[in-house]
Each structure stands twice: as C-alpha cells, then as structure tokens.
C-alpha cells in the first residue's frame, strides 16, 4: 500500500515517518515513533487511555488520523518531565496515590495538563469535567481529582 510522508513535532522534536492511509495517530506514535506512553484501551474513543495533546488541546490518538497532525505539535506523557525533574502533575499523582494499575495514568495526566495549561486554577467541577473522558477501572477517581487540584494550587502547573 502506498505510504505518505508525515512530519510533525513530537514533544518538541521534529519527527518524520511514512504512514499508510487510514492509520491513526496512536498506532503511529507506538509503532513508528516508538513512544509507548499513549495506551490502547478500546480503539474507539471510549476510554481516554490514548489521550495526547495536539497544539495544546487534548485529543484521542486512536480517533485521530495520523495525516491530520502534519506540521502540528504532538505532546505525550513521554515529554512531560523537564529533564530529570517531574512535572508538578506527576509529583502530585505520586503524592496523592493517584495511580493503581497505571494504565489510565498517561491519558489522565495529559487530560489534566490540557486543563491546567488553559485554566491554572480550576474548580473541582472543572477537573471532573476535564477527566470525564478518561476511564479508571481501578475506580481511583477521587485521588486523581485531588492530585490535579493539588498540582494546580501548587501554582506551578505551567512548568
């Protein structure tokens, strides 16, 4: 099958890959770029485990055609740390026991980052809305909400 050249920024670095028509961003990131932080949970936009930021907004990588990110900026959990230093959201998740099996965590963190980047001091309700598309089957929502609020009140959400 004919392949198309695709260039985009991945966590601040330029990447170029060849993709088949119809391939989604999740498969592109995992299989071609080698970034395993976005997870496959459903492939149909139901679970949020593949949440990434495209030009700063939260998107579901499994429902995003790879070719639509041409020339755009894609952020994943792999780029959240600043060198060896954890992002305030990552520290807050650790301190508030906001992960159990860890599988929803990459999507949760990216959904939370999109929120705090736009709204550094969200209300509890706004946090709940921001992660409403992310399913945690270990049912650890309360610690996750508390962690996002703690990261926000830490005042350094915009790292």
């Amino acid at each position, binding site marked *: 099958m004919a392949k198309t050249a695709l260039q985009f920024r991945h966590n601040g670095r330029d990447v170029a890959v060849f993709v088949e028509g119809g391939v989604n961003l999740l498969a592109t990131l*995992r*299989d071609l770029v*080698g970034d*395993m*932080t976005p*997870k*496959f*949970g*459903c*492939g*149909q936009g*139901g*679970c949020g*485990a593949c949440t990434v930021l495209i030009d700063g907004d939260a998107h579901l990588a499994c429902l995003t055609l790879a070719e639509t990110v041409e020339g755009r900026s894609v952020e*994943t*959990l*792999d780029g*959240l*740390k600043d060198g060896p230093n*954890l992002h305030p959201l*990552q520290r807050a*998740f*650790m301190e508030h*026991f906001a*992960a159990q*099996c*860890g*599988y*929803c*965590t*990459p999507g949760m*963190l990216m959904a939370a980052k999109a929120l705090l980047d736009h709204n550094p001091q969200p209300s509890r309700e706004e946090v709940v809305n921001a992660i409403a598309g992310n*399913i*945690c*089957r*270990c049912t650890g929502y309360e610690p996750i909400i508390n962690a996002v609020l703690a990261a926000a009140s830490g005042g350094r959400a915009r790292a």
Partner: protein
Amino acid sequence: MLELRKDIFADERDDNLNEIGKGTQRQDMLGHVTGTSTYFNDHKLQGMLHLKVLRSSHAHARIRRIDTGEAERSPGVRRIIRGADVPRNLNTLLSLINFGKDDEPTLAVDKVRYKGEPVVAVVADSDREAFEALAKIRVDYEPLGAVFDVEEALKAGAPVVNETYPKNTFTYYEIYDHQKLRFGDVERGFASADHVLEQRYQMSPIEHAPTETNGSIAAPDTNGRYVVYTSTQALFFSLDTCAKILDVPSNTFHFIGGTVGGGFGGKVDTLTEPLAILGAMLTGRPVRYIFGREEEMQYGPPRGAERIYLKDGVRRDGRIVARKVRAYFDSGAYTRLSSYAVVKCAAHLPGPYTIPNVYGDIYCVFTNRTPATAMRGFGVTAMDFAIECQMDKLAHLVGMDPMEFRILNAYRDGDMKAHRREAKNTALIECVQVAAEKAKWSLREEFKRMSSRKDGGGERAAVPVTATDPLKPARPAAQQRTPYDRPPRPAAAPEPPRPTPPAGSPTPAPQPAAHGAIRFSSVFGSRRR
C-alpha cells in the same frame, strides 16, 4: 496450627514493622506517572506477526466443515492454525491442581458451545491482513438447540452443552452433581419458626472491563525456549497451563509479566498465551495476540451469573432458626473456575451468622453462555447480596431494626459454623456497631454492649444431629477420566456418605503426567476432614 519459623534468617529480619499509619510509596508509582511501566504490549519486537481468531457466530452448533483455502492465499498470511495443530487441544484450568476434567479446547473442533468461541487462528504480517484473512474463512455450521438458563439446563431433555459433563453439571468427587451442605434439621427449624420467608435472587454476568485488554506476545528465544510477555494475573499458572496445552516441559518458557493494566479476575484464564506461543513455534517469529475491546467485552470471561433461592425460618424474638439455600452458578460452556466458586460458596453458608439448622444445594451448571471466571470475591459476592437482602426482609418481618437484627444473629468466637469449623476472630458485631456509629444510626444500649468475644461457643459450638442424604447413582460412563484427575479413592470422610468399596478393588496408582507441567498436590483432596 500455623508455625512461624522465626529462627530462620533471624539476623537478617527486622520485626519492627511499624508501617501502619505511615504513607509508603508504591514501588511502581514512578513508572506509572512517567509512562515507563512496561505492559506486555509495550514490547516492540523485530519481525513481529499478529494473531487474530475467528470466533463462532453461533451459541451452539456442530462444525461440519472449515474451509481456510482462500484465507491461506490472502496477502500477508503466514500461518493458519486449527484445532488439530494444538498438541493437547483439551484442557481445564484447575487440572493443574487435579480438579475437574479437561473440557475446553483451545480451538473448537467438532462443536462450538458459546457465541464467540475461537475456531481458527490466523497469523499475519499485520492486524489488518489478519482480519482480512479471517473474513475469507468459511465455516459450515449445523445449529443446535441452545440453553441459556441454569434451571432450564438441568431439565430432562435439555441440550447437552458439553459432552464432558452430560448432565450439564460439574461433577464433584466423581459422583455428585452439586455441593451439599447439611447441618441440623431445617424442616424442624421451619416448624419451630414464627415466620418462614422464601425468596428468589439473581445476578447477571459482570464484565471486568479492564482498560488494558487481555493479550500476550510470544517470541522464540535462544536454546529453543520462548519468551512470553503477558497481561496475565497468574504468571506461573499460565506458564504451566501453556506447558500442558503445548505438550512441552514448562522450562521451555520464560514468562514476563506482573505489570497488568487492570485485571480484577478477568486475566487468570490463560486466554491468549497458548495460541501466541504456538504461532511463534509454527512461524519462528514473534507473535502478538491481543483482544480488541469488543472481544474483551463480549467474549472475555465475566463474573458468572447466579440464581439463588433462600428460605429462612425466624422466631418472633429475632433469632433465625433455619436457612435453606438452593443456588445455581452459571459456568457458561466450560468449567474454568466456577466449580471452585461453588465450593467456596458452600463453605460460606449461611453467611456470617450462627443459625442452628442449615441446608445448602449449590450447582455448577453448564449453559451456552460465555464461560465465567474469577472476579473479586466470586462464589461469595452474589450469595452475600442475596443473604443481606434477605436479612433486611426478615428484620422487617419481625419488626426489628436491621442493624440490631444482624448483631443478634451474628456469629461469635467459639460458634460452630455449618461446614464444621469453629468460628475464630469474628468481628461482624463490631463491624455493624462501627457502621451504625458512622451512619449516625442509633442502636439500643444492649446491642452496643454486645461483642463477638462474648457469649459464643457453649451450646453454639455443638455440631447438631444431621441426617445424611441417600446416595445417588454413580457417574455416567460417558464421563472419561483424564491423566489430570485424581485416582478414585476409597471412602475416608464420614460426609458426604459414600459406598463401601467392593472388596478386592485396589486403588489405581497415580499416573505420571504425560507432559512437562509440574503436578501439584491436590488441594481439594487433602483439605477435607
């Protein structure tokens, strides 16, 4: 009595484990928040192939013919796998502890017994090519009558779901079609009761729905071994199950797992590893077999359905004097772990209460539904739901506060439980007291003063006179033994009653396993007394 050998490694051990009340970080937390925790599907192997299975479109059908000709010629297809390619195409999970008969194929051969049962596997260069090849496989089915209800399945003339168990019930101790619990005389109890309440409860199957679907990646390793990355919750159990199904020594495999994206009981059935490994054996390449979301939700094993009938006799003063239970566990088309759930349920009756007369009949029933498996407290969960609903109704019937009614009937230290073990370290009374306090639910003073450590034992420690049931006829000849079965044993336990073995019939010696998996001692054979 449990003995702690504290003398061993005494100089290396710190017994000052003052951890309660202090926060302790999970060892995997940093990996989780940085996305570096490695799940099975995060391994990218050179030349990896993709395995998908064709699933039955019928709940119950005979397979007349499978035509894979067109699929074999489909682009990207490396290998088609059929039932005949599986070295030991019949297994039951608990055969590793000699419990139950092999009743489930890895790939269906003659019959399909539930909608979604795997029939043919395709190994191809990509997921897409595997799916395209699946669509080209032609299976000629002869639909058979199906049964989806546990009580319908037990009626005469019901379709036989699984020929290994022709009565549609799991067989215990070679002859029994259900688990019995007999303690005292429930009929006399009902006669002495002021109220008798009989109710029916049921629970639908419940899917675990883990965010990470079931799956595994198998790859040829050096020295003829295979490395297997898997989502399993039961790493060594899965390893030995694969050794049995693929008929190789268990040291053929190096299983790597432990980082699981949610399991809750839905990842103990060794669903993907045997075919992934077989695919790797047949192609010499790494092979990935991962469930899609629809497969996980529709064909992944759920917590099984249960139907429960409870009949209780209660006196005007609030004491329950008899509890009779009839329950049906829907195992689906194969045993998996429901046989064990039934044993656990029988041991749990009549719930955490001291009731002088208890009667239980618990059935593990086969139907044409998706095979059921483990899930958080399985065997006890639905029964406790039924019992606690019943407790509320009984309290209402005698005009008692439901919390006080539970405290009054709660078991206490020293009481005899229906399965003839003395109750120890009981705490139901204290649990109810704390729950009442937290809910600002007022209890009368005498109920606040009651304790699990007081007023138990004595008369309540006695095993009542219990009539035993007449023996049912022996198992049908159609139920074949497998090398994994326990050999028949002469009657040893007084209950349930067993016939005296005819003189001169020696017990056959245990047969060595014909494969490489380790034989475990029989938990179920040694625990009874």
